[in-house]
Every structure is written in structure tokens, then in C-alpha cells.
């Protein structure tokens, strides 16, 4: 078996895992189980990044999303919802007609987009600016770093200022209660 075939099989498996685990995440009643399936989704996504030769992004995905952010979410769920098992009362009553309609509408939009994408965007054989060999030669983290601090410096700085605002906001809200 050659490397391409092996990668294709791996991709199919991970893609299936992503889809199944995200469906499971949306349908679980227990919020902790939802969070767990979300971790599985993130992890499988990281494997897809790896298959695309984006090692840095893959590990950042596991560290930041599957690691830190999901840990925070789990922590909050555990704090708020200490006794598991009585979450069924809220689920049925809160599904009003309006919410159902909105969900159906979103679903239709998503399907149309999928169809549109599949029909009108063809895969081209054009090689992008950062093919796998070039990235591997320069070093994966180096390429990402050079892009972040070169071409995309402004969006990067704006994003960090946004995060700073978030931190300051959190401190303000935490201090107000005292």
C-alpha cells in the first residue's frame, strides 16, 4: 500500500469520527457527555490537520481547544451542575415552535450551501503558495510564525487586542460583585 492510499483511508476514518462525534455531541442529554464528544471531535479534526501537513495547527488545536478550552467548559459544567441525572425536565419544555422553525431554517441553509459548494466549486490541481514540501523544508512552526508576524500582522494584533479586552472585561465583572 502506498502512502497516498494510506492517507486516504486515514482521512475517511477521521472524517467519519468527526461527523459521528459531532452528531453525538449535539444529541446527548448529559452536558458532560456532550463536552466529551466535542473533545473527540476536536481531536479527530487535529488528525485531519496532520494529514494536511499542518503539524503546528494540529497541535495548537489539541492544546488550545481540546485541552484548555474544553477543560474550562468541563470545569464550569461540573461547578454549575453538580448533581447529574436531573437535566431531562428542561429539554422538552424549552423547545417552542419558533425555536423549531429557526433550527429547521438553519438546517436548510446549511444543506443548500453544501449542495452549492459541491456543485459549483471544483477541485483544481493548482498548487497553493505553501505546498507540503516547501513547508516541511522551512519548518512548520517557522512558516506559520513568519506568516502570522508578516503578512497577517494586523489581524493578529487586532485579535490579541480583542482577547485583552475580554480579559479586562472578565476582571471588571469579577470585581463588581465585591
Amino acid at each position, binding site marked *: 500500500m502506498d502512502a497516498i492510499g494510506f492517507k486516504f483511508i486515514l482521512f475517511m476514518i477521521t472524517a467519519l469520527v468527526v461527523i459521528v462525534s459531532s452528531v453525538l455531541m449535539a444529541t446527548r442529554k448529559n452536558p458532560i457527555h456532550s463536552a466529551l464528544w466535542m473533545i473527540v471531535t476536536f481531536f479527530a479534526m487535529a488528525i485531519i490537520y496532520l494529514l494536511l501537513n499542518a503539524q503546528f495547527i494540529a497541535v495548537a488545536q489539541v492544546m488550545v481547544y481540546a485541552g484548555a478550552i474544553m477543560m474550562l467548559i468541563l*470545569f464550569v459544567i461540573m461547578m454549575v451542575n453538580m448533581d447529574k441525572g436531573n437535566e431531562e425536565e428542561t429539554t422538552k419544555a424549552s423547545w417552542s415552535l419558533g425555536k423549531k422553525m429557526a433550527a429547521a431554517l438553519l438546517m436548510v441553509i446549511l444543506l443548500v450551501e453544501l449542495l452549492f459548494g459541491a456543485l459549483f466549486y471544483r477541485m483544481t490541481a493548482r498548487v497553493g503558495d505553501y505546498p507540503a514540501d516547501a513547508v*516541511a523544508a522551512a519548518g512548520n512552526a517557522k512558516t506559520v510564525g513568519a506568516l502570522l508576524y508578516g503578512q497577517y500582522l494586523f489581524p493578529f494584533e487586532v485579535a490579541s487586542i480583542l482577547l485583552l479586552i475580554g480579559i479586562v472585561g472578565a476582571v471588571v465583572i469579577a470585581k463588581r460583585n465585591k
Partner: protein
Amino acid sequence: MELWYFILEVVLKNLVVISILMLFVAYLTLAERKFLGYLQVRLGPNRVGTWGLLQPIADGIKSFVKEDIIPNNADKPVYVIAPMISFVAALSMFAVIPFGQSVTLFGREIKLVIADVDIGILYIFAMGTLGEYGIVLGGWSSGNKYAILGALRAAAQMISYEVALGLIVIGTIILSGSLRLTEIVEAQRNVWFIVYQPFAFLLYIVAALAEINRTPFDMPASESELACGFNIEYSSMKFALFMIAEYAHLVTVAALTTTLFLGGWLGPVLPGPVWFILKTCGMIFIFIWIRGTYPRMRYDHIMKFGWKFLFPAALANVVITAFIVALR
């Protein structure tokens, strides 16, 4: 054919590393009990074999044959998976740590590291955070109030100390200019990074102890108040898996400290792997020594220390290192 040789090489390296790691873990439990015993002026285990040398085997057999209990109000699938997560994460962390220079065997150049990846150090942190899920989920799924408290503490402690840990390591990354662990070791050929970064070395030991939940930061499992915390309901092999994961994580952290600050496998006369194992054992001894010396910290003190001292200190270390490297 080349592909098959490659696969064979990877499988063999994995087997060798995992067996050595498991042997290390088994005898680390004995060494820890022995050293702690001497530090506390008692003898430690000395009944099974001379000097207690068969104690790890006896412990292994004991955990195999004990009854496996799953509590009634446990979340069964999560309860079963949690120790496995811990175990797998702790074992897979070691994959990127280099334990020697490449050797030539049967006409093939073999690197003495399982996976020499470009982002090695980030991979270790990623696996470390995944390992923490085992503790948090194990505590939560047990359906026991002490276990849940342990899990909450583990989660909060991990969030707090992971940030500082990542920042501390950035100093060595700036000095070596690479995230690849083999290159970090190569960059220390003349001077070990502990000379350039003595402050970061101390901070790293503190943050690493908190990361692997050891005394004085063993809040998730503090025996005296939580009656062993997150693993209170676990028995038999599941408990053993948690223990093995904890000690494998300890060995990995010691090996990583060696790699980052003590020049990894580099050293005169003796071959690389020997130096690597010697330095790692030294680090492990320091960790045991710390456990025998310091009492457990109070929980709010740990949080205050993590956010108000460790985090700013790590940040200052990054800024100063970057400044000096930029001036050079």
C-alpha cells in the same frame, strides 16, 4: 520494502521504549517508598525480596487479582475510559523525547527517538493536557463527592499552571530557535541551558510538580482531606492504571527537564542513552526529595502562587530572554 523496514523500526523502538519506561515506573514506586522511608527515618518496604526488590511485582500481582468494583451511581462508560485516557496520554508523551544521537544498525541510520517531529515540545504539552482529562473525568464519573472535589481541583490547577508551564519553556525555545527537541538538545552542546536559564529551571520544576499533581501540589488526591480524591472509588487494575500513568508522567517530566535544561543525552565519555538515563534519574531523585521535604500547600495558596507569582515571573523570564537574544 523500505516502508516495511521503516514500520519494523518504529514498532521495535516503541516496544523498547515502552518496556524500559514500564520497568522504570515499576521500580520508581519502590525507589520512592524507599527514599521517602529513609528521609523520614524509617526503613521502607523490606519484606518482599532483599531490600524490597520484589515489591513492585507483588504490587502488580495484587492489583491484577483484586476485585474490580464499579460503583452504582458511577457513569459507567466514562468511569471505565478515564484511567485509559490517563494511561495512553502518559505513555504517548514519551514518543518525542530524544534519548541519544542516531546510531547505525544493519546499515540503517536509526535516530534514538521514536518520532522526531517539528513541534515536539508542543506535542508533549498537548498530550499532558489530554492526560489531565483522565483525572478530571475519573473523579467526576465516580459519583462520589470527594472524587468530584478532587476532579474540580485538578481541572482548576491544570488551567492555572499550564499557562505558566508553557511560558517558562519559551525561554529555552528562544535560545535554541526550534520546537524540535533534538535541535534543542543540539543547541546545548557547549553550554547547558540551566546556565543561561537558572531561574526558568527552578520555575519549571515548580510548575511541573503542579502539572503532575505531586506534593506539595497534590490537591486532587490529598489524602488527609479528600481521602485520596479523584481515584477514591477505583480499585484493581483501573487504580493501577492511574498509578502507572502518574509515575510514567513523572518519568516523562524528569526526562523533559533533562532535555530542556540539562543537555539531554550530551555528555563526555559515556554513550548518550546512559547520560540521558543518569540525568533523568537525578531529576527523579530531586522530585522524590521535594516530596519528602515539603508539606502540602493550602489550595488557595496554590492558586495565588500560580497566578500572582509563577505567571508574572515566567512572563518576565520570556521578556528578558527575548531582549538579551535580540541584543546579541
